[in-house]
């Protein structure tokens, strides 16, 4: 099955997604903007689709990093995502303007794509399959503030 951003992944000289990404059904939480916000339409776009110019920076110099730039960030539990927000806000009180105003919850299904292992902070990434429309599967459950 092709990935949503297949044409970009094909240009990379690494295995993308990496071999430890698997097809799973999993409850997931994500930072999103509310429907009235100007960034609402970007809620489920990965960073290198939103900001292609970033590819030229040091952060995305390696193809393995570029691969990550075409994935979406999620958290495993509501507790994990709220904790991450608290940490981010401590350093950047204005962080809502960047990451989102609300938390959305949904279920990622096996046919939606491949997911990474979960890290220490409950974070994981998803490389979507072609045709996946997560905006129809996630609903806002609470504001960040």
């Amino acid at each position, binding site marked *: 099955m092709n990935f949503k951003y297949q044409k970009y992944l094909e240009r990379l000289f690494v295995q993308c997604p990496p071999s430890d990404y698997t097809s799973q059904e999993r409850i997931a939480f994500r930072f999103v903007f509310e429907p009235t916000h100007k960034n609402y339409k970007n809620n489920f776009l990965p960073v290198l689709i939103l900001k292609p110019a970033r590819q030229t920076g040091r952060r995305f110099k390696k193809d393995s990093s570029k691969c990550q730039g075409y994935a979406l960030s999620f958290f495993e539990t509501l507790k994990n995502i709220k904790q991450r927000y608290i940490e981010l806000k401590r350093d950047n009180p204005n962080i809502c303007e*960047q990451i989102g105003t609300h938390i959305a919850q949904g279920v990622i299904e096996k046919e939606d794509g491949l997911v990474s292992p979960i890290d220490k902070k409950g974070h994981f990434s998803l490389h979507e399959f072609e045709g996946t429309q997560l905006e129809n599967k996630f609903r806002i459950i609470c504001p960040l503030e």
Partner: protein
Amino acid sequence: MQELVGYRLEHFPLNLRDIVDLIYFDGPLLTLFENEYGDSYLYYWCDVDEQCHRWLVFRVTQKTLRFYVTQKLSLRELILNPVDGFLYSVELDDELESRQTYLVQPKNLPPKYIPAVDSYYDFSKLDAEDTEAKGLLLEKLWDEKHELSDLLIKLFDQFPVGMNKPSLA
């Protein structure tokens, strides 16, 4: 964007290259840069609108940077007490072109731009995907007088396998 009181500059006067993202979540939030002489600067993300992201840019000494990453100084203290007495506010567009630059005094920063009192660093804020980050940071913070073993342990959670613990006697 928040209203900002400052002195407008024609252009951003520094020529900096990025070294490592110190705080990252789906994009850099605090990034270490350096100039051609090796002086360190921090880019601190603080705001965004339809056209630009706004960053506060300020110089840090090696000592204050090391104090920050070893939790002896908070990010709030760094931003409110910049080495040069001022910060640059730089607005960058999506192509990373500078659109507006101001000199800003710390006392004029909007409250939303000032980190919390307990804004201390921990190495889990480094981007896990950026495998070079820890090495780059260590290189930047290297100082013969510093207790290198403590820094290594904090960076890697434990002393890296295969390295001899340095003697600092």
